[in-house]
C-alpha cells in the first residue's frame, strides 16, 4: 500500500520511513491540508508533535487492504498510560450533543487490546493512517477536535474508522493546557448535526462490560467500568424456543428460555423477578429478540443513569415486545402484576414512573408523578430496655415527635415493671411485652409485622430524638425515590449512621447543634449500604418484603446491619438523613441490653456482593416465629428430656460456653429432646449472652426456630435450680462448667454430645 508520512515537528517516522513514498514535514492544519492535496498516494500517515513510531507499525500499514478504510488509529504510549481514542457518549444536559469518553489503560496493560481492536468512534490523534481525500480540507487546529472531525468525515464518506493497537507510537502525555478544545468541539457539533453520541464503550467491550455511574461518599458521581450484569432473556410468543436458543449468544453467560404466552409468560416474568439483584432481564417476543447491537443500545440507555429501570426501542416495544429491565432498580415489593405480558409490563413501567425511575423508550410519556404527597404516618415501635431515667427522657421525646395518625407502641420485657409503669403514664402508647427475649426481638417483630401505618419506625430507648429530627427523617421518604429505610445521624457512632464532625458536651448543646444542622444541611442525605443504628424508619412495604429483625441477632449491630443488607439487596435505597441529629446514650449510662451486646460485636462492613446478588424471598425473616413444637410429640415423654447445664460467670466462661454451644448446635436441632440451660451466676447480663450466642446457634444455617433449644437464665441458687431440673428429666453439666452445687452430675464434653441421645434411647 502506498502512503505518505506527514510529520509534525519533533516526530520520528521510524520504520514507516522505509515504506513511505515521502516524509513531509508539516505544521499547522493548513499545511497538512496543502500537503494532502499535493500528495498522490491514496493514504497518508499523520504523526503528531514529538511522536515516535513504535516497532510493528509498518507491518500494520502493510496489512491494510480495501478501499473502505477511512481512518486507522492505534495506541499512544507514555510512561503512565496507553491511549486508544474516545467514544462519543450521549450527553443529555450539556452544550455538546456528545461527551468524549476516553479509552485508555495503564501502561503495560495489554488485556484490552483484543477488545479494542476494531471500530472506534474517534482514534487517538498521535499517529493516524487516513485516506488522502479525508485530509484535503483543513482539520481543526486542536488535535482532539481534528481527530473527531477526521473520523466523522470518514463515516460521511462511507469509510471505516478502526483501531489496531499494534499500530503504536510513543507520545507525550496529553497537554493539560487544552484551552479552546471545548469550543472547537462545539463548532464541530454545530457544523455536523449528525455527530451525536451513542455509546460509551467500543463494540469489543460492550459484550462484557458497562460504564456505570456510581455515587461516591459525599455525593460526587463517577463512571466506573464494571462487568456486564448477568443477562436473562425471556422469549415469548410463537417459535420462542428457537429464538431463545439464538438469544443465548447475546452476551457471555446469558441464559435464555421460552416462557410461553399469556398468563404463563407473565408468571414466568414474575418468577424471574423473584430475586432481583444486579442483573438484566430482556423480555422479547420471538420475532423481536434484538441482535447484539440493539441490545447494546438498550444497555447503554439503562446505564446512562442509575435511575433508569427500563429501556425499550420504542413505546410499543415496552409492552413486552422488546424491553430490557434492570432488576435491581425495582424494589422488591414492586410486582409485575397482570395476567398477560402486556399488563405485567404496563404495571412495571407505571410503578417505575411512580417511583421516579426512568423508563427510556422513545415516545413513552410517563404518567404525571404525584408531587408534594403527604408525608407518611408512622407506627413507632419503641424498644424499652434502658435505665428508667433514660427511657423516660427518650420516650417523652418520641411522644413529642409524633403527629396525629401515628401509632405508638412500646415494647419491653414482660418482667420490666418499671418500664411498664412509665409506659402506662402515656395513654397514647400501646404496650407489648416480650416474655422470652431480653433483646425484645420477638416483640419488635410482632409489632412491626402488624404495623398499621405506612412507615415503621424502630427506636431503641437509648436514642434521644431532638425536636424535629423524626419529622426530617420522615420527610426523606417523600423526596427520595425507592427509599426503603432512613435514619438520623448519630454523632460518633461506628456505622453508616455515624457522623464525625459533630461534638457536644451535653444534651442542651446537642439540641442547639441539631437545630443548626437542620438548617445547614436541610434535606441532605447520604445513601449507604450498611448501618447499625437502633433508630431507623422503614417503609411498611419494604419491611414486609424483607421481613423483620433476625431473631438470631436481635436489634443489635448485626441485626440492624442484616436488615439493612436485606433492604439494599431488595432494591431499596437506605439513607442517613444528615439534617436529623440524634443522641445515643452511652451504654454505661443507659444500661441498654442491646447496646451492651453491641460492645462485643464488630461493626459489619457493607457486603456489596450480597447486595448485587439480590434478596431471595426465601430468606425473609418472619415477623412471628413459628409456634414451638411440642417436645413431647418429638421425644415421647418428659423422662426422655435432657437438660444440659452450662454455668457462666465471666467472659472466659462465656467463650468456652460458645464453643460448647456451637458443637451442640451441630449435634442437635429443635426436634431433639435436649435443652441447654445457660445459667448466669456471675456479672454477665442475659442480653450480652444472647447477642453472643445467637449467631453461633444460627451459624449452621438453621433459623432460630430450628436450632437446639437454649434457655438463658440468671440463677441465684444453683441447688434449687438443680432440684427442679432433675424433677423434669435427666440433667448433665457441660464439661468445664462444673459448680459445687452440680457436684456428681455427669459432665459431658462437646465431643460426646451425640452420645447423650443414645443413652436416652436406651
Amino acid at each position, binding site marked *: 500500500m502506498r502512503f505518505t508520512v506527514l510529520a509534525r515537528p519533533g516526530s520520528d517516522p521510524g520504520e514507516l520511513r522505509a515504506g513511505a513514498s515521502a516524509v513531509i514535514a508539516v505544521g499547522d492544519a493548513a499545511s497538512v491540508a496543502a500537503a494532502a492535496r499535493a500528495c498522490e498516494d491514496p493514504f497518508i500517515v499523520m504523526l503528531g508533535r514529538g511522536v515516535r513510531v513504535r516497532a510493528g507499525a509498518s507491518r500494520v500499514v502493510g496489512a491494510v487492504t480495501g478501499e473502505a478504510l477511512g481512518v486507522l488509529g492505534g495506541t499512544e504510549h507514555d510512561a503512565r498510560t496507553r491511549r486508544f481514542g474516545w467514544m462519543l457518549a450521549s450527553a443529555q444536559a450539556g452544550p455538546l450533543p456528545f461527551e468524549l469518553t476516553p479509552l485508555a489503560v495503564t501502561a503495560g496493560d495489554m488485556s484490552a487490546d483484543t477488545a479494542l481492536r476494531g471500530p472506534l468512534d474517534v482514534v487517538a490523534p498521535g499517529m493516524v493512517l487516513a485516506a488522502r481525500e479525508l485530509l484535503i480540507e483543513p482539520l481543526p487546529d486542536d488535535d482532539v477536535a481534528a481527530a473527531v472531525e477526521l473520523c466523522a468525515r470518514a463515516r460521511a464518506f462511507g469509510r471505516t474508522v478502526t483501531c489496531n493497537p499494534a499500530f503504536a507510537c510513543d507520545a507525550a502525555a496529553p497537554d*493539560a493546557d487544552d484551552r479552546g478544545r471545548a469550543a472547537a468541539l462545539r463548532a464541530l457539533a454545530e457544523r455536523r448535526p449528525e455527530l451525536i453520541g451513542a455509546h460509551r464503550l467500543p463494540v469489543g467491550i460492550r459484550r462484557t462490560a458497562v460504564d456505570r455511574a456510581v455515587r461516591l461518599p459525599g455525593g460526587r458521581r463517577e463512571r466506573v467500568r464494571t462487568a456486564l450484569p448477568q443477562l436473562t432473556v425471556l422469549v415469548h410468543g410463537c417459535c420462542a424456543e428457537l429464538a431463545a436458543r439464538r438469544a443465548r449468544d447475546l452476551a457471555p453467560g446469558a441464559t435464555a428460555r421460552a416462557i410461553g404466552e399469556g398468563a404463563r409468560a407473565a408468571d414466568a416474568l414474575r418468577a424471574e423477578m423473584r430475586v432481583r439483584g444486579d442483573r438484566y432481564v430482556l423480555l422479547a417476543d420471538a420475532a423481536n429478540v434484538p441482535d447484539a447491537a440493539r441490545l447494546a443500545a438498550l444497555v447503554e440507555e439503562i446505564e446512562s443513569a442509575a435511575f433508569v429501570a427500563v429501556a425499550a426501542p420504542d413505546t410499543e416495544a415496552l409492552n413486552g415486545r422488546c424491553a430490557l429491565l434492570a432488576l435491581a432498580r425495582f424494589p422488591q415489593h414492586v410486582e409485575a402484576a397482570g395476567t398477560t405480558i402486556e399488563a405485567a409490563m404496563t404495571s412495571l413501567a407505571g410503578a417505575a414512573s411512580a417511583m421516579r425511575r426512568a423508563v427510556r423508550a422513545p415516545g413513552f410519556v410517563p404518567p404525571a408523578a404525584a408531587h408534594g404527597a403527604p408525608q407518611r404516618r408512622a407506627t413507632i415501635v419503641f424498644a424499652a430496655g434502658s435505665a428508667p431515667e433514660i427511657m423516660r427522657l427518650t420516650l417523652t421525646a418520641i411522644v413529642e415527635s409524633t403527629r396525629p395518625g401515628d401509632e405508638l407502641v412500646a415494647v419491653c420485657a414482660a418482667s420490666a415493671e418499671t418500664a411498664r409503669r412509665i409506659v402506662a403514664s402515656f395513654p397514647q402508647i400501646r404496650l407489648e411485652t416480650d416474655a422470652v427475649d431480653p433483646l425484645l426481638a420477638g416483640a419488635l417483630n410482632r409489632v412491626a409485622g402488624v404495623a398499621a401505618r405506612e412507615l415503621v419506625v424502630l427506636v431503641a430507648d437509648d436514642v434521644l430524638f431532638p425536636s424535629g429530627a423524626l419529622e426530617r427523617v420522615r420527610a426523606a421518604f417523600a423526596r427520595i425515590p425507592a427509599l426503603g429505610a432512613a435514619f438520623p445521624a448519630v454523632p460518633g457512632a461506628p456505622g453508616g449512621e455515624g457522623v464525625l464532625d459533630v461534638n457536644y458536651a451535653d444534651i442542651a448543646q446537642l439540641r442547639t447543634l441539631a437545630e443548626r444542622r437542620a438548617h445547614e444541611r436541610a434535606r441532605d442525605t447520604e445513601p449507604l449500604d450498611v448501618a447499625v443504628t437502633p433508630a431507623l424508619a422503614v417503609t411498611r412495604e419494604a419491611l414486609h418484603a424483607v421481613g423483620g429483625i433476625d431473631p438470631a441477632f436481635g436489634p443489635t449491630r448485626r441485626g440492624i446491619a442484616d436488615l439493612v443488607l436485606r433492604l439494599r439487596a431488595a432494591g431499596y435505597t437506605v439513607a442517613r438523613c444528615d439534617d436529623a441529629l440524634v443522641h445515643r446514650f452511652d451504654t454505661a449510662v443507659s444500661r441498654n441490653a442491646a447496646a451492651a451486646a453491641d460492645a462485643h460485636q464488630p461493626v459489619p462492613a457493607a457486603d456489596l456482593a450480597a447486595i448485587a446478588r439480590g434478596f431471595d424471598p426465601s430468606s425473609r425473616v418472619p415477623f412471628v416465629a413459628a409456634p414451638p413444637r411440642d417436645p413431647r410429640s418429638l421425644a415421647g415423654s418428659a423422662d426422655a428430656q435432657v437438660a444440659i447445664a452450662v454455668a457462666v460467670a465471666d467472659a472466659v466462661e462465656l467463650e468456652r460456653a460458645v464453643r460448647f454451644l456451637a458443637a451442640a448446635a451441630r449435634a442437635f436441632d429443635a426436634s431433639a429432646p435436649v435443652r441447654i440451660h445457660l445459667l448466669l451466676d456471675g456479672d454477665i447480663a442475659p442480653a450480652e449472652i444472647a447477642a453472643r450466642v445467637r449467631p453461633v446457634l444460627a451459624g449452621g444455617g438453621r433459623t432460630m426456630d430450628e436450632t437446639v433449644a437454649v434457655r438463658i437464665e440468671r440463677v441465684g441458687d444453683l441447688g434449687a435450680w438443680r432440684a427442679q431440673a432433675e424433677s423434669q428429666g435427666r440433667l448433665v453439666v457441660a464439661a468445664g462448667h462444673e459448680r459445687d452445687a452440680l457436684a456428681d452430675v455427669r459432665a459431658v464434653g462437646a465431643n460426646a454430645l451425640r452420645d447423650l441421645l443414645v443413652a436416652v434411647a436406651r
Partner: protein
Amino acid sequence: MRTHRTHAIVAPWSTAPAAVVDAERLAAVRIEPVLRQRRQALVLDLYLADGDGATVVPLVLADPVTIAERDRDPLVFPAGTPGDDAFAAAVAERVLPHLERLVLSGERIAEHVLMLAASPAFEAARAAGCFGAAPLRESLVRLAPYRYARRFARGRSVRIDAPDAAGGWAVLRDLGPVAVASARRDAADLRWYGDAPVAGDRADVAIVSAGGDPGDAACIVRLDAGGPGDAPSELRSASTVVEVVDPLALDVTISFDPAEGPTRRWFAVERAVEPARRTVPALAFAAAGGSAGRIAVVLGRADGPSRPSADTDEARALVSALAAEGFDAVLAADAGELAGAALVHLFGTRDGRRAREIAAAARRTGAPLAVHAHDDDAAGGGWWGGEVARHCFEYGDDERAVESYLAMLARRAVAVGAASADVRYAPPEANAADADAVLRDAAVVFAATEEEAESIRARTGRRGTIVIAAPLIAGPSAVHDHADRAPIGALVGPDPFALVHAPLAPLANQLLVARCAADAGIPLVLAGPVADASYLERIREFGGPGLILLPGEPSPAVATALYASAAVVIDAAWAGEGGARLAAAALAGARLAISDRRRFTVPGIAARRFDPADTGALTRALGEAWDEALRGPARPDPETFAALAPGAVVRAIVRGYAAIESPVA
C-alpha cells in the same frame, strides 16, 4: 438553602422595593444545559415578579442526576439569594417536577424557558439579551466589556454611553457611582436590571460606543463597532484591544483569552490610568571576564522554555552572565543538546526522569553536572497539596462542601488516592527516586538556603559540595532594568493589586490564593502561562469578580511593570521553581507573602509566611502584607542588595564550578 460562590457575574438583584421571596410569584425559569467542571449541569435563572417589581436569581446550579435521585437539594443558589430555606424549598417544589420530567425522559435538554405566569418584562429582557433572561452565550458577551472595566471602576465615577448600558451598570454598581447616559436608558433593560441613574457629562471612567464622546475621562473603554477581528490596525496600535471569547458556559464564561475559543467581539481601552509605580534601583552586573569553556544550562522542566517560571528566568540570567564572563554558555532544550559541553548545569530536579536523562547525557559527554536544586522537598507535602487542593473545590458542589473540604485541607485530612499528607508522596511520573539520585551524585549542588542544603543531604545522603547561592535575578524579569517598562494600566487598572506570577497550575496553588483574595476583597492579578486549562477554569470559577487574569507569560517589560506596581507578591506554591521572582519582587519594593514550604531567605526581606494548605492563614498573611503595602512599600536594605547582587551570585556559582575538577576555568 444550598449556596455557591462561583462564577460571580451579577449577584441576585431586585427591582422591587423589597425582594420578592414568594415562590408563588415565580413567573419564569430559564433553563440552560452547561458544562461545569467539564461535567454536564443545568443552570437556572429564576424570575419572580409582583406588582412592585421583580427579583432575579441568576445562575442557580443543578446537577441532573441529583434532580432524579434527590439525595440532597438539587438546586444550589448563588450567594446573596434573598429568602430563607423555606423559600428555596418552595421554589424547588415548583421547578423540580419540570426538571424531573426532562431528566427522566432522557431527551437532550436544550436551552428553554418554563413560563409559570405572564412575564412581559422577562420576555423583553430575553429579546434584549439580558443576563438572567437570555442564553449565557448571548448575555455574557454583552456584559464582557463591563466585567473587564471593573478593574478601572473601583471607587471611581463611571459613565456608560454604550449598548447594554443597564447591564453594565448592574455589573459595576457595587464598585462606585455608575450612571448611564440618558440616550442609553433602554426601557426593557431598565425594567430588568433596575433604574440606573442618569449620567452627567463628567466621569473618571467613560465606557462609550464606537462613536461616543468620552469627554475628559481619565479612562476610556470604547466598545466595538464591528464583528470579531474587525479592530482596525490603527486602533490596535493606539490602544489596548481586548477580545471577548465566545463563551462556553460555565467553564468558559467571560474570557478575554483568545486561546479559549473564537472571538465574538472586541473593545478597546483607549486610555487608562497607570498604577502607581515604585522606582526600582538598578542592579549592576560587572563581568570579570576571562573565563572559557562550554557550559550547557538546561531546565529540569521539559516545558520550562514554553512555560517560563522563576527557574527559566534564572537559567536565562545565568546563561547571559556566564556569556559575559567569557564562557560559551547555551540554554539547551534537552539531553540531546549537551554534546560538547564541558559542564552541564541543571535547574531543578522535580521531573526525576528528565533529571536522570540529563545526568546520564552529561556523564556520556564526560561533563560534570552542576544542579540548582530548587528543592522544596515536593514529596514531603508538595505533591500532595498540588494534587488534593483542587479536589476541595471539585468534589462537592456547594459552598458548604468547599468550606468543609478546605477545613480538612488545613488539617491535612484530605487524601486522594495515594496522595495523603501522612506519608511522603510523589506521583509515579515524578520519579522522585531518580531526582534524589541526581541530587546525591551531582558534582556540585546549589541551594538557596542552609535549610534546603540540609534537607537535600538528609534525604538523598549526599556527601558532596552544596553551595549556598542566592537567586540570580536578571534577564527577562529583570526589575532593575526599568528603562523599558511597559504601560499596564489598561491591563490591571490604576489601583494597587496583589500579584502571583507563575505558570497557572495546581503546584503553584493559585486557586487557593484566588479564593482567599476574593474573601479579603483584594484585587488579584494572576499572570503566567497556562499549564493546566481546567485549573484555570477553577480559578475563574472561584476567583470572584476582582480577579484579573493575564494568561500567557507577560513580556519582560510588562513583567517589570507588574513587579514595580504590585502591592503584594504572593507565592503560595506547594513546590516552586526557585526564588528568582520573589527576589525580584522584593527588590522592586513589593511586600511578600510566601508559603512556608518555599525555601527563600534573603537578608533584609521580611516576608509574611503562611501554610499553603490553610486558607485562613493565607488570607491573614495576604491581608497583613496588603495593609503594610498600603501603608508604604517595602524598602530593601543594603544587605539585601548585597545578597542579591548578580555579580556576587554569579561569582558564588562560578566558585562552585571551580570546586569540581573540570576543564571549566
